[in-house]
Structure formats: C-alpha cells, structure tokens
C-alpha cells in the first residue's frame, strides 16, 4: 500500500481553503493561457540571467533555473509554527557553537559524545577559544523543512555554512506578479522584499570600528560558481561591493580592498566561500579563492566574517539527531519542530536495522550536500545496495540513515498539464544583534521528475514561489 502523501492543495478531493482564491483564478484560465504564462516565465528568467552557467569551450552555456508557476501556499497559523520552531532551533544551535568552541559543557555533561565532535570535518580547531561578535555564529541559516503524510512539519536539515537560494525566493516573487497580476494582494500574501534590508542591517551591526558607515563586502568565488547569480543579486540589492579573493589584501591584521583610489579597509565580510578555501595560510594552501591572512585579522577582531567559520560542526548530519537534546539542554524547552528519526551507521545495531529494511530507508553522507552521495532504498537494485554497503562499512561515521518520508506534494504545471510533485521548504533565518528574523516564505524546492523525492537543483529540481498568507 502506497504511503500517504500530504497534498498541499487538496484534502479528500476538495480544495483546501487557503488555496481557494488561487484555484478560482486558475479555473478561469485555459491550458493555452497557462502555457503562455509558463513561456513568459522562462523568457524572463533567461533575459534576466537567472540561470545556472555550465562552462564549455570558454563560453558559458545558460541553463534556466527551473521555475514552476503554480505557487505553494502556507497559512498564517502554519507559518507561526514554523517561525517559532526555527527561532528556537537557531538559538540552540548558536549556543551549541559557542559552547563547543569554548567550555564544551554539552560534552562534559554527556549529552553529545566527544568522539562525534572531534571526528566532524566541520569542527575547526582554529576556532577554539575565538570570541565572535555578539556570540552569533549563524547569521544566515537555511533550515530545510518537509511535511510527512499527516502534514506535520519536520526539519530535514540545517544549513548553517553558506546556505543559498534566497535570490531565487526574491526572483520567484518578481515572476509571480508578472504572471498572475493582482493575485498577490487578493491573497494577502506577505512580502519577502525586506530580506536584503534586514541582512544589511545585521551586517552593519557587526562592525567593530566606531564608524558611521562601516565597509561591508560580499566575498564570492567568482563567475564560475553556480550560485554567482545570487551573489550579484544580493550585492546589488544591499548596495555593497562584490569582491573576489584577489581584490582583498591583509596588512597589519586588517583587511583591505584594492580600489582605484588605493586601499580601503573592510569591516564586515559576507563570505560565500567555504571555510576550507577562506585562508590558504591556515586551511587549504592551494586555495586561490580566499585571502592570505584573513583568518588572523578575524581572530584579532579587525574584521567580522559571516557566517562564522566552523559552523559545519553544527550542520553535520551526524550531529542533526542531537539538536532536540540541545534545545532541551540549553533552552530547557521542548522542541517545537520535529526531527526525522536518524540512525548512525557507526552504531552496529543501527547499521543492521537499516540494511534489514533498506527499501524504506535513505542513507546519506554526513558531510555532503546537493543531494549527492545518497542511497534511496526504494529506487535501487540489490547490487547497488551491496556496493553502497561496502562504502558505509569502510567509514561508517560518515553516513547516517533515515526512513524515507514521502514529501508533501503540490500541483505543478508541467508539459501543459497540472501534475503533483514533491516539495520541501527552505526558510531563511537572519540572526543579528537585535535578534532572529525570518522573512515570511522561503524557497520551495520541487522534485520535477515524477515520483522523485530529490529536490536539489543539481539533481533536476526546480523551485516555486512560496506564499505565506497574512492573518
């Protein structure tokens, strides 16, 4: 019997009340009109350069970031639950990061095993004892949520290092008012356009110098990075310089950017370069994306880096099962959002149990992203399972398993027809000196292949506009 899938739009054959207004307008359009809207969306995406770039023969090949025109709608009550749950989670994770890089009480009190921490690739010894401004480590977080068959929200994953996708959230909204004029106000959809302003406010607040206009920059790996569109969009919307590693230089423990008028000191860096490539003097010596000496300037307190280095210890998939315990331990609260039951593959009992019911399990690498390196137990052959099992046996610490959850589905307009596809949701949380703010909505990612549960864009996923309704 097929496991139940929560349909975001339909309930027992009827339209859910919060989709009614949209459904009524949808019924007034013909299939041809919808096709025209879909084509308009593709053209707008292409013309505005909202694409992935695949480089071949020295010339960029543009691939449109797939966008489905039918929005995903969330009620005000549902959003309130999500928002409070994410804020609780972010608070706990920040306290955890502060603790793990200082006194490590959570280890000493036996909540988390020390071996787990010290075997995390994301744990940076270089961050031990380093005080960060306002004790904030996760200034920008993307928390991936899914819904199970009963409609409950689960946290699937925390993204605390360089979460991406917010630019598509902003552009998707811009597409929607072009494709469905008048529908946004009629549905009382809450705005997302404040995100860049909120982020900039937080970044400015992190500057150390007593200066009325601190210099904030965004550090990008450059035009060959698949998320480059997002880097340029955010830099433009915030009015900050988009720099590459070669534009910066460190002198006397301060970071400067090379300008036409000479060197200019930088106060805050919103970096989209991974920890490993940040400073070749400290981390990967072959990195040409980072800046030599930047880590020294950071430890001296002369520049703020967002997100803080070393957050990988908190969003490692092997640490994920302990987050509810962190919430209880640090906040003395019950977790608001559920987490998916998780099995550690370096636990022999878990290992046996998982492979005994592999057809209902998914196994993931703890430090991988983009949907790569996973085994979806229901969609593989015995041979593939056997081969994967060997990999897990070689290094069990680097794998976790979870039961396959049938993600909720939303109608999508594909090849001229409305068809259901599985989705998840990535809201973006901003943590600044004044607290945590979450822009209402986020990025709904959709698995465009029929039956697929993998929503990552690198694996054929697309996105939708996400509407959070006002109360």
């Amino acid at each position, binding site marked *: 019997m097929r496991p139940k899938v929560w349909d975001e739009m339909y309930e027992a054959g009827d339209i859910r009340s919060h989709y009614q207004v949209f459904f009524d307008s949808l019924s007034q359009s013909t299939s041809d009109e919808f096709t025209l809207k879909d084509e308009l969306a593709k053209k707008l995406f292409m013309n*505005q*350069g909202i694409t992935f770039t695949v480089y071949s023969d020295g010339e960029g090949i543009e691939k449109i970031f797939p966008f489905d025109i039918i929005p995903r709608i969330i009620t005000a009550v549902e959003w309130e639950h999500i928002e409070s749950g994410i804020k609780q989670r972010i608070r706990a994770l920040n306290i955890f990061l502060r603790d793990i890089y200082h006194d490590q009480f959570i280890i000493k009190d036996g909540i988390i095993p020390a071996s787990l921490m010290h075997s995390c690739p994301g744990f940076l010894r270089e961050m031990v004892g380093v005080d960060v401004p306002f004790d904030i480590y996760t200034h920008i977080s993307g928390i991936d949520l899914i819904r199970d068959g009963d409609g409950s929200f689960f946290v699937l994953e925390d993204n605390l290092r360089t979460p991406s996708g917010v630019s598509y959230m902003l552009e998707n909204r811009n597409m929607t008012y072009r494709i469905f004029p008048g529908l946004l106000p009629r549905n009382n959809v809450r705005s997302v356009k404040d995100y860049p302003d909120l982020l900039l406010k937080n970044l400015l607040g992190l500057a150390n110098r007593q200066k009325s206009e601190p210099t904030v920059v965004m550090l990008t790996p450059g035009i060959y990075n698949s998320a480059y569109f997002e880097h340029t969009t955010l830099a433009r919307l915030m009015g900050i310089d988009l720099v590459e590693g070669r534009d910066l230089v460190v002198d006397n423990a301060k970071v400067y950017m090379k300008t*036409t*008028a000479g060197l200019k000191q930088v106060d805050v860096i919103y970096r989209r370069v991974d920890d490993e490539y940040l400073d070749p003097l400290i981390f990967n010596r072959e990195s040409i994306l980072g800046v030599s000496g930047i880590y020294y300037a950071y430890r001296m307190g002369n520049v703020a880096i967002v997100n803080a280095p070393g957050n990988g210890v908190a969003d490692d998939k092997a640490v994920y099962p302990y987050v509810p315990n962190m919430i209880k331990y640090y906040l003395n609260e019950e977790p608001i959002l559920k987490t998916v039951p998780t099995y550690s593959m370096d636990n022999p009992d878990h290992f046996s149990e998982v492979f005994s019911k592999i057809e209902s399990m998914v196994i993931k690498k703890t430090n991988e992203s983009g949907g790569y390196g996973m085994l979806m137990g229901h969609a593989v052959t015995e041979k593939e399972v056997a081969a994967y099992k060997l990999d897990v046996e070689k290094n069990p610490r680097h794998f976790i398993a979870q039961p396959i959850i049938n993600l909720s589905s939303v109608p999508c307009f594909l090849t001229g027809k409305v068809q259901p596809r599985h989705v998840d949701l990535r809201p973006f949380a901003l943590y600044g000196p004044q607290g945590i703010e979450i822009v209402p909505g986020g990025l709904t990612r959709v698995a465009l292949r029929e039956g697929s549960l993998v929503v990552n864009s690198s694996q054929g996923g697309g996105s939708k506009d996400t509407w959070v309704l006002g109360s």
Partner: protein
Amino acid sequence: MLSRVADSVFWMARYMERTDKMLRALRTSYIASQDEMQDFDWQLWVDGLSAKSTDSIEVNNYREALNHLILSTHNDASVLANIVRARENARSVQDYITKEVWQGINEYYHLIRDPKTQDLLLKNDPVTAFDQLLRESVLFYGTVDITMNRGEGYIFISIGKYIERIIRSLDILELQMLEIEKGRNEAMHWKYLLYSLSGYEFHTKHYKNALQMDEVIGQVFLDVQFPHSILYSLLQVERYFKRLENISLPEYFREMEFLLGRALSNLRYNSRRHNDVVEVKGWILETRSEVKAISQKLATLYFGYS
C-alpha cells in the same frame, strides 16, 4: 571602486564599441559588395579585421566572410567573440552596472546566438540582421546613459568607449586607404569610409568639395562636431578622465593628464598635409600608438596591472 571592477567595466565598454564599429563597417561593406562592386575584396577585410594572422582564413564570398567575421567561434576577433567577452565582463561586475544594462547585454548575446539571426546573415537578408544587432548596440548606449549614475563606473565605461572608438576609426580608415591604393574609385571609398563611421550625411552638409581626401581626413581626424572623429573622442577621454581627479592619487592623475595633453597637442598642432598618403599613414600609426599607450598606462595606474 575596485580596481578589478574598473578594469571590467572599461573592457566591457571597449568590446561593445568594437562590436558596434565592426558591425557598421561590415554592413557598409556588404551593401557596397551588392551595390556597385562585382569583385569586392572580402579577403582584405578578413585579413584587416583579424586580431592576429592566425585568426584569418581564406574566403571566397560574402557568406564565408560574414560567417568568419561575425559568427565564428574560432575567430578570436569575431563579433560574437567580442559580445561574449563584453558579457563576461558585465557578468563579473553586475553589482556595479544596473540591472537594465546587464539585461541589455544579455539579450544582445542571445540575439547573436539565435539561429534566426544566423540564417538572416548567411542565407537571407544580412542587412536586416545587421540592423537588428545594431539596434541592440544603440540600446546599450541609451541604457547606460539613462540608468547609470555618473560615478566611477560610468566614467570608466565612457573612457573605454572613446578609446576604442579612436582605435577602430583608425583601423577602418587604414583599410579603406588600402582599397584606394589598389587603384579603385577613390571618392567611392571615402564615401564608404564615412558611411562606416556614420559620417556621410554630416560630410555632405558641411564640406563643399565633398569626398576629397584632405576634407575627409580633416573630418575624421579633427572635426569636433563629428562624434566619431579622433579629436572629438580624445577630448571626451580627457573630459571623463578629469572627473577622476578627486578620487585619484595625485601622482597617478598627473601622469595620465600629461599623456592625454601630449596626445591632444600632437593631434591638433601638427603640419601634416591631409592629402598626402604617406603623411596620413604616419599619422594613423602615431595616433594609434599614443592612444594604446594611454590605455596601458590607465591599466597600470588604475586597474592594478603591473
């Protein structure tokens, strides 16, 4: 402004101006080849517009020539190659140009890669294709003018545009002089030169002995009313450069100011005879060399080149 960004917007402008100039020249050449001349020398243009001798190929007709000069991905100096470079430069500085400018270049890129454009150029009516492409070029200039604030980005775009304009005007003049040396109708080639530089109508209105060498050379080099003249363009470079004074290191500014002043003096105050082929050729070489030196010095002082 970041040195790297200044470099990118400068070169974005240079590639866009280069594209515009090439398209205008090729449009004129194509019409010339259809209009009067049965044995139009496309090889001369292919050799002349190739950046390096290895970029040139042997061509037998207009289709092969236009394909090589406009659409070829194997020719480093083709119009397509220039638009790709302009776009890549624009892509890397999207936070410094406006969204409209970026979209304009992006649409230009998609237009030239559109199979319909290629069909027009190679199988149907090339003039329609030229006009469509040139319209995007004009749109780019208008978008820059209307949407960009008059900060450093705009200044470096303007300097790049006019430096490239000087160099390309000289190249096209040189090519037409080569045609004339082959014993062809001199007046006709001066006419084509002026059409390539969008200066023919101006010439007929302002010069009585129309299409005489000394007057054409005078217009191309020294007429400040003519926006594609060398003197007008160099004055614009100086005009925009002076706006950088407040943000420049004084020694850098003085060095550039000296080079520009000297180039302008050499242009204005010389006793060259405009109807002497040898002297004019020398003038072309000297002016081109001076302008390239200005560009290189700008790169060293402002873009961080060593």
